[in-house]
């Protein structure tokens, strides 16, 4: 589904990703872990198409297509979703209106019929129920005045509604209490299916107690320095990143 090879990217002239390889097959959940500044968020943003990141080498294929040539909205239309670490507040933009615009933009681009107000509301209620969310969230402006946890839950709600093929969660678990963490996990688990994939970018092992990953990768200095099963996350939790970074440095040398 996603095939990243030798990806290099810079921000303001500084190279953050230094030849990254990542292979994600349909149905898989990958966790990407690593210390601060290792390039985790950069990877997420480059894949979603944020401006300000310069790709200087390598490639990323999404279902065989060159992902990096696509506009951010085209990536979304083809099934890529990024849950933001810091979701934007959009004053005056009603959450329901926003969700409907997003959903129908994708359907229109894929030549599917757009949902009318009634079917859309039905779908929303259904998704809210799955995630045990309150519908007061829908009447408010997007993320305005939301607590940190509410913003993250809103991201997961968007993900549930848009049903992406590949969801990338950029530190969605950071700063969450246990209830909010469960909602995030529920959202991810509800999305899991043989033809959908998830990338969990995270600093901590905690989320992985609720969402069991198929693969765990450790990112350091802009490269994946180690990959393994879910046990790797537990090992990291015990030994800290210093252990891996030391190894990474040795490999580089």
């Amino acid at each position, binding site marked *: 589904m996603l095939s990243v090879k030798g990806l290099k990217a810079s921000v303001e002239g500084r190279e953050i990703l230094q030849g990254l390889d990542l292979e994600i097959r349909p149905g898989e959940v990958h966790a990407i872990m690593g210390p601060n500044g290792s390039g985790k968020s950069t990877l997420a943003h480059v894949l979603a198409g944020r401006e300000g990141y310069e790709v200087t080498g390598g490639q990323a294929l999404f279902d065989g297509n060159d992902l990096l040539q696509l506009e951010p909205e085209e990536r*979304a239309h083809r099934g890529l979703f990024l849950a933001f670490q810091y979701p934007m507040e959009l004053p005056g933009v009603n959450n329901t209106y926003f969700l409907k615009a997003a959903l129908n933009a994708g359907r229109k681009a894929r030549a599917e019929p757009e949902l009318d107000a009634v079917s859309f509301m039905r779908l929303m209620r259904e998704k809210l129920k799955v995630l045990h969310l309150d519908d007061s969230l829908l009447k408010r402006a997007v993320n305005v005045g939301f607590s940190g946890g509410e913003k993250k839950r809103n991201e997961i709600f968007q993900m549930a509604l848009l049903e992406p093929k590949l969801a990338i969660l950029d530190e969605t678990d950071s700063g969450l209490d246990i209830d909010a963490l469960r909602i995030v996990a529920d959202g991810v688990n509800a999305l899991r299916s043989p033809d959908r994939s998830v990338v969990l970018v995270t600093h901590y092992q905690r989320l992985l107690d609720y969402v069991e990953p198929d693969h765990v990768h450790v990112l350091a200095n802009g490269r994946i320095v180690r990959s393994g099963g879910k046990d790797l996350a537990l090992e990291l939790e015990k030994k800290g990143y210093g252990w891996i970074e030391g190894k990474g440095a040795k490999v580089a040398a």
Partner: protein
Amino acid sequence: MINSPATSVTWEHWLDGDPDTASGGEPPWLETQRRDAIVRVRRQGIPTSREEGWRYTSLKALAGQRFARRDRTAIGVSSRDIEPVLVPGLDAHRVVLVNGIFMPSLSVLDGLPDGVRVGSLREMLDSTPDILAGRLNRLAGAGGRLFSALNTAAMDDGFVLMLDRAVEVACPIEIVHLALGGDEPRLAQPRHLVVLEDGARATLIERYLSIGEPLYCTNSVLELTLERNAVLEHHRVQTESPNAFHLTGLYLSQAQSSHYVGHTLGLGAAWSRTDLMVRFAGQHAECDLKGLYLAGDRQLVDFHLDVDHQVPRCASREAFKGIVYGKGRAVFDGRIHVARDAQQTDAQLSNKNLLLSRAAEVDTKPQLEIFADDVKCSHGTTVGEIDPQAIFYLRSRGIPEAKARRMLCLGFAHEIIDGLRPKPLREYVAKEVSRRLDDVALSHEAERRN
């Protein structure tokens, strides 16, 4: 440009009242007011850009334009003509003025409770002038703006709304100020008076608009007095012709514990100037004044705000937002004055502007003049573009860039629009704003291509 027309043009033709009324014996107090106004206008002349209030707004085009005198016989409008300009679904008592003239045949005023007087200023001046004595020109006279003096000199008609003590009008009262084109550019200088006596409550909607896109000028003045405990919601929506000049002066005086909630929207006209003047006359009065302005190509919009806290323990909250695009220009000048005795004043002024193109321009000047020491005052001004991060957020959800821009622009405007009541008015205004912002993305795109 050596023979600048500004030096040879005067306001003389603005001072001419209606030839019919000039001869028809008005009350002596009004004759005096008119004479004083004429003297003042002649003495003061046309303001230049050296005057602080006109630094960023040129009067050249307006002063160089010749306007015809008003002509009552030219008005032949039927109810059917105004049908298309009504707000769908708005249930309101309605007054219609055409080119500044009160039109009883188009107005719908049945069902108003006792103790409400709504009518034509002209008619009241002719039949019951004593009611207006001491009220008309009380707020806009001495110390008023030059254009208010012009209005005083030449005013002929307008609407009067008076609510007796404790009278409540549940249904909004809507004033439709309709402009029609004629053979020549026309000047209308309507004068309006609103008085809510102690404890009275009402919602007043004013709309300034035209049929077609004629060139004309509206120079209106509204004097508004809230007595003790009176509550007024006041929504003003200006969607004049794209070729029109629009001047409006609102003079608001608030007695003890009165509450004013006002929204002023400047969406239309080629050139517009809005002066909002608030005076607190009693303690514990509250004023919530919000506004939204749009300016695109060949549009200038100018808002001047003057809030005067002369007495203690009053609150004023002013929030104005502007969206300027294409080659549009906006001016915002917000002044809050807190006198030495006005202790425990709570005054908040904010002005936020969104510039959508490189050629768009805004001049904003908030001023807090505080002479009391125990006050809570703040002001904030921002001028910026649409947050690129917010655009990316929307695009990452599949929303195309042009639509993302539009959604964020409308969201910015909605923070003001959402305060409009009742719902049909809010929806009407949302559509008007949305329609005008349709070109926004295009103009931005065009600019980027160049």
